[in-house]
């Protein structure tokens, strides 16, 4: 792969990331189901990861691996967030017998 030029400009990756973020945001704002809202949040995190990688790759020092490390740690944080979020959804479903966000209107367990 050394010496092969990249044909896609940075704006292409940023547009894909922006589209992904908008789809995730729409999923998080539009849907009622808590699991689908979590999936939307995961899409937004994926868009952020793509931005991190693109800016690292097109930045002045791609050999420093900072963007790559940031993206890897962000993936780990996203996995942790998904685990805790889905655990919360299951716990709330056990108490209220629903996963609709409109019906989750009290903090008391």
């Amino acid at each position: 792969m050394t010496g092969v030029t990249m044909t896609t400009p940075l704006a292409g990756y940023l547009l894909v990331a922006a589209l992904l973020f908008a789809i995730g945001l729409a999923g998080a704002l539009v849907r009622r189901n808590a699991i689908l809202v979590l999936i939307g949040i995961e899409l937004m995190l994926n868009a952020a990861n793509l931005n991190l990688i693109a800016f690292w790759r097109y930045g002045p020092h791609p050999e420093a691996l900072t963007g790559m490390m940031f993206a890897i740690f962000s993936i780990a944080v996203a996995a942790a967030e998904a685990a805790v979020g889905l655990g919360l959804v299951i716990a709330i479903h056990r108490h209220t017998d629903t996963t609709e966000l409109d019906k989750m209107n009290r903090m008391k367990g």
Partner: protein
Amino acid sequence: MKERTCGPHLRWPAALRLCCSSTWCTALWPPRWPLPGWRCCFLQLDAQFAGFAQILVYIGAVAILIVFAILLTRGSDLPKDGVFSRTWFVGLVIAAGVFAVLGVGRVAKRARCAAADRRSLPSRVHDIGNALVGRYVLPLEIVALLLTAATIGAVIVAMHEKERPR
């Protein structure tokens, strides 16, 4: 320097080309199948390690969690008011506005001015491993601790509670 900039007419074709085609992953993929989305962006950006790590994490962990969560909560009643929230139109407008701001406005304008190193970098999994156990070993340990705590916390939160004596 001129070839490093991208004009306004290159934005949408470049994004479409990014979604629909690729370099060597196109050769590995059956020609009539759609490419698996934005994961190929990682391959094109010479971030194969991050791309495959993301595929492993999301297919191996997050997707399984979501499937189990759906299976465990599918006994709930179907929503009478539909699957969309009452303010779905406002949500769509907000999402469209965010995309307009991010994609068409500020981001693309800044990207036009960004100087890009267009040479591909060699595969650097060895360098990534060295960096993870060298310079970034403390963040790696913190993330490992975070993952362990999140896993234990998720199990405790989702664990079946015993009936409290009244």
